[in-house]
């Protein structure tokens, strides 16, 4: 087969800018072959190279005594004591999910699970944060149905409990949904596997599923804006096979336990290219690959296709040569492909052989280290205009507007399609705040949450970035967990626009300040840029996934109050309505500034909640929707009514930060108030739980009536 000539059109079609191509010519001193052009485009696209974001990501706090391994590996590794570690990361699969929702979302879950078990950890929990366009947009219901089905189909079959997540709707996602998948795994702290290759002449082994043409050029696609040719991109979406992934997990963990593995890297974006370059580059070695040995699903695949294929459920490994027979036996047991496809070489070369020909011969270290890096121009986001007059609304009407909107309605339609209990360690299932999973075979537990309020980030990227972290911190504290560390999944529009880049820079600054103040460093993450359709960017959505530790399952704070428990707000209420859920859902108003985040107060109040767990019958964080929504969710979840004394809209629906709603037994109130006073924490009794109706000030509604609205709205508004 003759390969296409390298023309300016071909170069542009690979997403390479003229100056980037000039850099390629400079590095290799000749025109690249077709395969080489493909390799460069795979390594240098935004998705793999982080060329627009690297400069800013470096500013994030990533270290701490609890951090065993920060960003740069497949996932972050955090110490949880007793020689154990939790390994986690969050990653987007936005573009593929918009093109083919079921497979796009499924392979997003598959990819993040692989990131975790590549490091030697058995996945123990998953979450997913989903953002869709307006419920009545013609594509939305189809996307919701497909994405939820896809997430479920993969996680359920693989056998990892999905214990949390978020689902939101906003018109800015009409043409560009977000699918952010989180996974966490458990491993012994001294048995973590990394991607750094070592030793010359070591076999490079290909494991898992066969290579097909699916996903060729996927990472390049994910680094471009969408337009009306989107449907033509369907063939670049990969197809997931959770059954193969489950076998790959078991085979990899067995192989790792055998001591045969030197280094391992999963084949994710840009498959064979990215994984081989990463292992070689980290180890200061070259890699020689013989593509004739690659297990292939389709006939007559070219070197170009094999190097760029994003077929799922594949791993690349550098193996101890003496242990090859044992390794082969393990993979045969699980009926998976095992092939020696190359070796490590001493010189700085990435040498690709196919059909007796050299298809690529590149300086390996230059592929990642010489990748372009941009200091994109950016402008700070201007200060938000003050919030004008707020239209009048009665409290009960306001509550109904929130609980009847798909963004704030009960999400059982979603999470009941996910197996949340497989592995039999789930302690707190989805629905209220953070999910909690026992550390298998111990009395410890881990809590997981994912949070961001994109409206805040758009109005004020710095405060919005801080708020996303602060809310995650609160959700962990609310179940009694000590926040440990964070993963960030940064979804933004086109970074070549200075105002979008300004959102990105601001959000990173805010996130950095918050993770430093709250001692929950960033240990892994992912950046997804170019989330735009026809020039319209999404709301900036830096999703924060966070993990907390409970020394004992007995320390878990419940989420459901009992009848006659008192409702007490912890933290100061000022009634901030700017960018609030109430204004957005009841009136379509998205104006004013985001609420300010006082990180000192966040930490003080979070520590107070954890210290006073003995006096707290139940707890929830206060975030968007404010006191009224959180109180309703707690009461409804327990199947009991509620009385809130105030009827002041800003008090009920304001979104001031650093606040919790706690349920306290009447006999414990005095002790709780005294403890708060001693800690310098503001507390105020705002009502009580119990009865069969919801009373807000002078208004009353039957719990059953509100419950029907709350539980029915999601499917109803989406026509599902």
């Amino acid at each position: 087969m003759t390969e296409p000539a390298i023309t300016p059109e071909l170069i542009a079609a690979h997403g390479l800018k003229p100056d980037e191509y000039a850099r390629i010519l400079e590095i290799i001193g000749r025109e690249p072959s077709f395969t080489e052009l493909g390799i460069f485009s795979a390594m240098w696209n935004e998705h793999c190279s982080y060329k627009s974001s690297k400069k800013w990501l470096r500013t994030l706090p990533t270290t701490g005594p609890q951090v065993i391994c920060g960003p740069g590996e497949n996932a972050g590794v955090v110490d949880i004591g007793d020689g154990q570690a939790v390994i986690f990361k969050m990653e987007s699969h936005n573009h593929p999910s918009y093109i083919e929702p079921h497979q796009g979302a499924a392979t997003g879950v598959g990819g993040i699970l692989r990131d975790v078990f590549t490091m030697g950890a058995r996945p123990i929990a998953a979450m997913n944060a989903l953002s869709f366009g307006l419920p009545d947009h013609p594509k939305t219901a189809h996307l919701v149905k497909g994405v939820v089905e896809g997430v479920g189909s993969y996680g359920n079959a693989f056998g990892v409990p999905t214990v949390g997540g978020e689902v939101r709707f906003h018109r800015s996602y009409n043409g560009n949904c977000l699918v952010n998948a989180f996974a966490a795994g458990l491993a012994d702290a001294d048995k973590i596997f990394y991607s750094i290759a070592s030793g010359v002449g070591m076999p490079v082994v290909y494991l898992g599923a066969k290579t097909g043409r699916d996903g060729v050029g996927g990472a390049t696609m994910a680094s471009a804006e969408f337009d009306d040719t989107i449907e033509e991109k369907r063939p670049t979406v990969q197809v997931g096979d959770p059954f193969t992934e489950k076998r790959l997990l078991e085979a990899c963990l067995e192989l790792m336990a055998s001591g045969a593995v030197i280094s391992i890297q999963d084949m994710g974006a840009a498959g064979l290219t990215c994984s081989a370059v990463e292992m070689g580059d980290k180890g200061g070695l070259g890699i020689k690959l013989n593509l004739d040995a690659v297990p292939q699903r389709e006939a007559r695949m070219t070197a170009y296709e094999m190097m760029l294929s994003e077929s799922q459920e594949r791993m690349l490994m550098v193996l101890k040569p003496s242990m090859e027979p044992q390794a082969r036996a393990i993979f045969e047991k699980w009926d998976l492909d095992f092939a020696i496809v190359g070796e490590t070489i001493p010189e700085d070369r990435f040498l690709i052989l196919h059909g007796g020909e050299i298809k690529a011969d590149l300086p390996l270290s230059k592929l990642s280290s010489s990748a372009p890096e941009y200091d994109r121009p950016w402008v700070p986001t201007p200060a938000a205009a003050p919030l004008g007059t707020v239209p009048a609304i009665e409290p009960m009407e306001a509550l109904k507007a929130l609980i009847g909107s798909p963004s704030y309605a009960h999400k059982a339609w979603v999470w009941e399609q996910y197996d949340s209990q497989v592995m039999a360690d789930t302690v707190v299932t989805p629905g209220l705040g953070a999910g909690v999973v026992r550390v298998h075979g111990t009395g410890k537990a881990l809590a997981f949450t994912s949070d961001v309020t994109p409206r805040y980030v758009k109005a004020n990227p710095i405060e919005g970035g801080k708020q996303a972290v602060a809310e995650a911190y609160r959700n962990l504290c609310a179940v009694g967990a000590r926040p440990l560390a964070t993963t960030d999944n940064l979804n933004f529009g086109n970074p070549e626009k200075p105002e979008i880049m300004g959102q990105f820079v601001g959000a990173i600054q805010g996130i950095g300040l918050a993770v430093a103040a709250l001692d929950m460093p960033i240990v892994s993450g992912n950046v997804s840029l170019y989330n735009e359709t026809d020039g319209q960017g999404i709301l900036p959505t830096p999703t924060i996934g966070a993990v907390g530790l409970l020394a004992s399952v007995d320390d878990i704070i419940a989420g459901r109050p009992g009848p006659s428990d008192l409702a007490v707000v912890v933290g100061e209420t000022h009634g901030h309505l700017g960018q609030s859920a109430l204004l957005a859902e009841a009136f379509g108003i998205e104006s004013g500034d985001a609420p300010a985040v006082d990180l000192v107060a966040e930490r003080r109040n979070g520590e107070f909640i954890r210290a006073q767990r003995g006096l707290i019958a139940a707890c929830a964080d206060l975030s968007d929707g404010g006191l009224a929504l959180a109180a309703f969710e707690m009461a409804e979840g327990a199947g009991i009514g509620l009385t809130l004394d105030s009827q002041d809209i800003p008090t009920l629906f304001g979104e001031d930060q650093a606040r919790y709603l706690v349920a306290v037994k009447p006999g414990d109130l005095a002790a709780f108030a005294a403890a708060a006073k001693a800690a310098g924490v503001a507390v105020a009794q705002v009502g009580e739980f119990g009865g069969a109706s919801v009373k807000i000030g002078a208004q009353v509604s039957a719990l059953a009536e509100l419950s029907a609205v709350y539980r029915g709205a999601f499917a109803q508004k989406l026509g599902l």
Partner: protein
Amino acid sequence: MKAAIITFPGSNCDRDLAQAFERAGADVVRVWHKDSALPAGTDVVGVPGGFSFGDYLRCGAIAAQSPISTAVRAHAARGGYVLGICNGFQVLTEMGLLPGALMRNAGLKFMCKTVGLKVAMTDSAYTSGYVLGQTIQVPIAHHDGNYTVDAETLALIEGDGRVAFRYAENPNGSMGDIAGVLSENRRVLGMMPHPERVVDPLNGGTDGQPLFQGLIGNMALA
């Protein structure tokens, strides 16, 4: 009492089932599907939930052809106990050890939630620990749990009192609200809900415990 828990390559509730048996006091042996024999002295075989071979076509159909299946059939033919949960139930119908088939849920969606189950008979080792008519809370997690059987067989199993559990509120379209069904000798039980997920109060209840304890207790008497 020795329980042999089978692992197919796509099983994912095998560890959970093994633990539930251990918790109830059984000696547990894990068995790989490519093995051709059960461990000597096996009293009960546990066929766990999961997606045995991916289950992209008919759930459990390939598992029923695994080498271990011959041994499981022989064990059942000898009057041995076999408990199949979720995918395990699907596998047992495919092996021909239980009548009927598990079709796609009537609502077409995967469903994971805790449901009420009515104990429909107590005349079996599995159900002797419950009170007849008692409602227990047990989670389901399946896409294909819609129990379907021809009218004649349905009449037979109903008339014979072989329905072990019925859904209090039918979640998946199963005929006769059937959630679990027994073999003629009442020693093979298949059920879609997951009793092994409710043996520890921390996980949301202990309504699954009497099933395992009853089974082991009956065997100690035998």
